């Protein structure tokens, strides 16, 4: 029997009436980078919480690093690392003190040589005696990854590792994440709602929406599954669905706000026909999408990832948005 770094069967987490994670099955082999891609509120963070033992499992089974999360959570916690979406460090403490505390929490004794190596690897060695509050966001993120690596975990969980970072820092982190995975041989499970991030980093992806996995596989494999292009179209005059459907080569028509999204076999063949058919209506905007993870998501859920995110399911985010709206 193959032992997976992460394995889940029928994993479910409910908060009252809300099912945040709904019968999820996972098989993550050792040594890879596995991505959970989905909009905000899809259940990505909740999956991390139940797999790391931070939250109780409502039903189903999960094992991480060879131990059952439900019955032996402490054994799991000795073997996992965690990088939060928001950087969580003791700002009043130095990098070295943060590492010291992490070593204490993981019950490590001769941790100093490794801590120094990690600081060297992340280029933080000469700043180790400075308080973390003087660090840039990129440095803080690096220190957080160093903390996660200190006790040589088998699996590292990264929740939206590059959310809110500038493009330069994001690219640096991508390199670090693949580097850590390659050089330390650690399995990484990361969540993201950035398509290009999941595409660039992950060997395997599961697309998640409303707490359910809608598709899983390698990014290239997922892309090849969608044997269609998408054309997004906005016209100046009202156009009815039947007219668009009548255009040869259009297999599906969906309305998305003011725009239409047409699923077509080949954009190159269909575009001239669209111009032909709609020449009197005035095309305001037209956009062609070749197969990408974005179109995979669109094809499976009928929504774009960022639009799906606006259907807020998480009540805290909902209230936060209400507060913002009230100004």
């Amino acid at each position: 029997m193959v032992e997976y770094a992460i394995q889940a069967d029928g994993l479910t987490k409910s908060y009252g009436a809300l099912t945040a994670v709904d019968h999820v099955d996972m098989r993550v082999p050792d040594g890879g980078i596995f991505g959970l891609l989905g909009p905000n509120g899809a259940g990505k963070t909740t999956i991390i919480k139940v797999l790391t033992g931070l939250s109780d499992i409502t039903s189903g089974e999960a094992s991480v690093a060879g131990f059952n999360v439900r019955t032996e959570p402490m054994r799991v916690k000795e073997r996992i690392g965690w990088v939060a979406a928001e950087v969580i460090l003791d700002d009043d403490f130095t990098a070295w003190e943060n590492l010291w505390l992490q070593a204490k929490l993981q019950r490590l004794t001769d941790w100093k040589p490794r801590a120094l190596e990690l600081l060297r690897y992340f280029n933080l060695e000469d700043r180790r005696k400075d308080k973390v509050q003087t660090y840039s966001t990129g440095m803080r993120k690096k220190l957080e990854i160093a903390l996660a690596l200190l006790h040589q975990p088998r699996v590292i969980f990264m929740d939206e590792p590059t959310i809110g970072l500038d493009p330069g820092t994001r690219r640096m982190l991508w390199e670090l994440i693949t580097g850590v995975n390659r050089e330390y041989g650690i399995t990484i499970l990361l969540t993201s709602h950035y398509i290009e991030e999941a595409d660039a980093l992950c060997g395997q992806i599961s697309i998640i929406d409303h707490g359910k996995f809608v598709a899983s596989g390698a990014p290239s494999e997922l892309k090849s599954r969608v044997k269609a292009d998408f054309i997004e179209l906005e016209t100046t005059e009202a156009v009815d669905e039947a007219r668009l459907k009548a255009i040869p080569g259009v297999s599906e028509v969906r309305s998305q706000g003011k725009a239409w999204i047409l699923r077509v076999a080949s954009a190159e063949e269909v575009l001239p026909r669209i111009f032909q058919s709609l020449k009197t209506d005035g095309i305001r905007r037209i956009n062609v999408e070749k197969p990408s993870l974005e179109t995979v998501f669109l094809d499976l859920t009928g929504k774009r990832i960022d639009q799906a995110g606006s259907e807020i399911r998480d009540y805290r985010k909902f209230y936060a948005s209400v507060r913002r709206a009230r100004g």
Partner: protein
Amino acid sequence: MSTETRHGAVFPSPTVASPPAPGAYVSQGSQFVGLYWRELLRTFRNPWVLVITIVQPFMWLAFFGSSFANVPLSDLDALLHTQIQSYTQFLLPGVLSTSMLTIGMFGSMSTIQDKRFGFMKRILITPTSKATVYLTKALGSATRGLVQIPVMIVAALAFGVRFDGDPLLWAGWILGLVFLGFGFSCFFLAVTASSTDWQTPGVISNFITMPLMFASGALFPASNFPTWMQYIAKFNPVSYSALFGRGIVVQGTADWLYLGYLALFALIMLVAGTLVASRYLKIE
């Protein structure tokens, strides 16, 4: 720990303090040291925390203690049913006892801060139990409260109070304050275990401080009280600490039974609080 489950042989490998036993339990000694030390560093690196801790009881001693300065001592002796050097001398053990009521608030606030900033998740994603987090917070609070004791004694000296007596009695007095402070820290942390609101600790502090301060022997002898207040004072641990301390500071004698009551109070709060916190401590 079997080697095949630990990765990253490229770099030096730390070892775990003691080999884990099979099953769910992980020993908590190392985590306890780490988290308690964190509490201490956070307190003593922030001088304002110390200033706030000390100012309030100091104000009581300075202002309230001086409010009978022009009353003849014989009148005060009649009112307080004892022979005193000054009201400040009478008040010192009481003020130190009542200030132990509020120190739990700081531990509570630091716990809520950890929940809100996500640090609680960082702690609990390691093999650290909720009980360990709870105990280090309670002990951190109590330690912070202890700083008041030497400062208040020096302040009382400055106000002209003269001390004498057996060092053993003094050690007993301080131990009694430790029990009281630790007990109330445990209480505070247990009732705020599931709270994430900054305001909760302040509300609870206001709610318990006033009645427990006045319905105790801390400021005046309980024999002056109406019956219903005497009844509260009888069950109020602040009374025991104030009476125990006053015996030592004013009369130079100790009723060790009071220390026993205080130890019992601390023990009950510790056990009950640990049970509550390991069940209800929220992570965010």
